[in-house]
């Protein structure tokens, strides 16, 4: 009986897991290219160099249309920047502050405590500048899509010639990783879009991987701490499980 129950429990967990994954995958014939990410797995960690390159891509390619609402300049310390560098990066941006003593709002250079300013004043302005489509905020995008990082990578490298049977409407683009294949975002990355200071490759694939790495960090900045604590917690609890089971055996030895 006990064995059957355990087996049934496992089956139940497996089925719910599979159905969850299946429902997450959603619309049928999209391409999803699995990548080897350094942050995947039990001992996963971020690659600082890749994140810095990805941040550069965000600034030079994505930030024209996409906001990064929940990330503050001070968070860039995770990417390996020191305080002076973060101050310098922040100072390149202008944010609104105020009111001052005359009751006027004013613009000032951003400080590390500020968050990344949005490229648009509001959603309507964003739509008006993008053919009616709203470019989503990118701070959580890597968690807000099923198979987040692989999906982002596939999407960025997914602009292909539309099949002859498909007619692409004006202002739309064909992407084989996007649900329904018609996406309002024009192809953002072609390869050699940026020049990396560290001389890393700038193929479309490499740039897409770097910016995905950065966006994963933006969505889940505590991932490294989480996994590090997780390894210790699982180790401790495994010992606890073994000890408690042995203690149980000892206590029950005299029960017949």
């Amino acid at each position: 009986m006990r064995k059957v129950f355990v087996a049934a429990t496992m089956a139940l967990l497996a089925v719910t897991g599979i159905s969850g994954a299946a429902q997450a995958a959603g619309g049928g014939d999209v391409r999803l290219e699995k990548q080897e990410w350094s942050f995947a797995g039990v001992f996963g960690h971020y690659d600082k160099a890749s994140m810095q390159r990805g941040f550069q891509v965000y600034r030079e390619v994505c930030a024209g249309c996409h906001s990064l609402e929940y990330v503050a300049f001070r968070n860039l310390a995770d990417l390996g920047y020191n305080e002076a560098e973060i101050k310098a990066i922040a100072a390149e941006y202008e944010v609104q502050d105020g009111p001052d003593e005359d009751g006027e709002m004013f613009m000032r250079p951003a400080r590390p405590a500020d968050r990344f300013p949005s490229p648009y004043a509001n959603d309507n302005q964003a739509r008006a500048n993008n053919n009616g489509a709203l470019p989503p905020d990118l701070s959580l995008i890597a968690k807000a899509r099923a198979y987040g990082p692989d999906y982002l990578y596939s999407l960025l490298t997914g602009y292909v010639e539309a099949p002859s049977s498909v007619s692409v409407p004006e202002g739309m683009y064909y992407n084989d990783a996007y649900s329904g294949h018609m996406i309002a975002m024009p192809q953002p990355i072609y390869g050699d879009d940026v020049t990396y200071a560290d001389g890393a490759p700038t193929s479309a694939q490499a740039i897409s991987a770097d910016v995905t790495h950065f966006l994963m960090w933006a969505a889940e900045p505590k991932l490294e701490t989480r996994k590090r604590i997780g390894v210790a917690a699982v180790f401790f609890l495994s010992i606890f499980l073994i000890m408690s089971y042995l203690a149980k055996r000892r206590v029950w030895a005299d029960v017949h």
Partner: protein
Amino acid sequence: MSAAKFSNPVVRWIDHRLPVFSMLDHTAHEYPTPKNLNYMWNFGSLAGLSLVIMIVTGIVLAMSYTAHVDYAFGSVERIMRDVNHGWLIRYIHMNTASFFFIVVYLHIFRGLYYGSYKAPRELLWILGVVIFLLMMATAFMGYVLPWGQMSFWGATVITNLFSAIPVVGESIVTFLWGGFSVDNPTLNRFFSLHYLMPFVIAGVVVLHIVALHRFGSNNPIGIDTKGPQDTISFHPYYTIKDIVGVALFLLLLAVAVFFYPNAMGHPDNYIPANPMQTPAHIVPEWYFLPFYAILRAVPDKLGGVLLMFGAIGVLFILPWLDRSPVRSARFRPLFRIFFWLLVVDAVALGYLGGKPAEGSYVVMARIATAWYFLHFLVILPALSIFENTKPLPKSISEPVLATTGEAV
């Protein structure tokens, strides 16, 4: 109440005036527990632990959460990014909610298999079903609080169910919303109730335990204990056995929290709620999927709502549907087959609830729904009349002794 049994004079003094130590002593030492309980009896203590974890993490989360449509999503992100170990507290809260349901489902199916709902434990069972209902309401409202896309649209779909009630339905929905759509008043009242309900659950849990202690635990053989040779004290035997369960539970929970924290959630809930944009598939949390499948299996809205609530309703009257005097499935060969069919049926309903309501999925969901009710309303009453049960052992110690001797 003999206060003299405690050697410590302070304990004796307190116990004479407030017999808490006598109560503890009674629970730990005098309260007789069948000695043949297997690990399926661990899920009660694990459900209690889950409730405690939920309340503790929930209180901490509430300190940094803002129940307002414009700030709720941002305040959750603030918890995830800026509150010290906020990400840990929130991931524990999210994942323990799922684990709570896993544990309670196993607890319920344990009761179904061993006939724990039968006389004299009917009220114990019914109180358990009440806790289950309260849990579902609490979990549903909790899922709305982060104010993501699934929060908003899940709340819209589920509250809209009440509009199926004839005549007063629309008014009830307006009353629940506190307006004419799911909006700020809805979020505020859901937060208020989400904070209240766990304490209501805790109250019913106390009643559940009082009812349990009236006749003690059922056991895998399902026959009453006949005397001291059949029982052992709760402490240390079942305290240590419960701790083994706790260790395994915490280990699995840690794996989920630290390595797969979002696996049981929906990615759409990391998109802020947008009343102008409906997600492609609105799905509730996984633990509601079997009931969601039943709801959608019926072409008529009111019928679907009635059957969905009826699926829990039959559990309330289960003690009077299954009239077989034999409790444990071990001695009911036919019942045992139907029990496993019900397990398969429930898992199938869960699977179908996560699929779009179209094509063969609908047909399968209808068959599975029909089987669910057939099981409780027809098969169980019929089995109580026609099933030939196996002979019961004379006492608990008899088969236990037999298995520890030569091979049986």
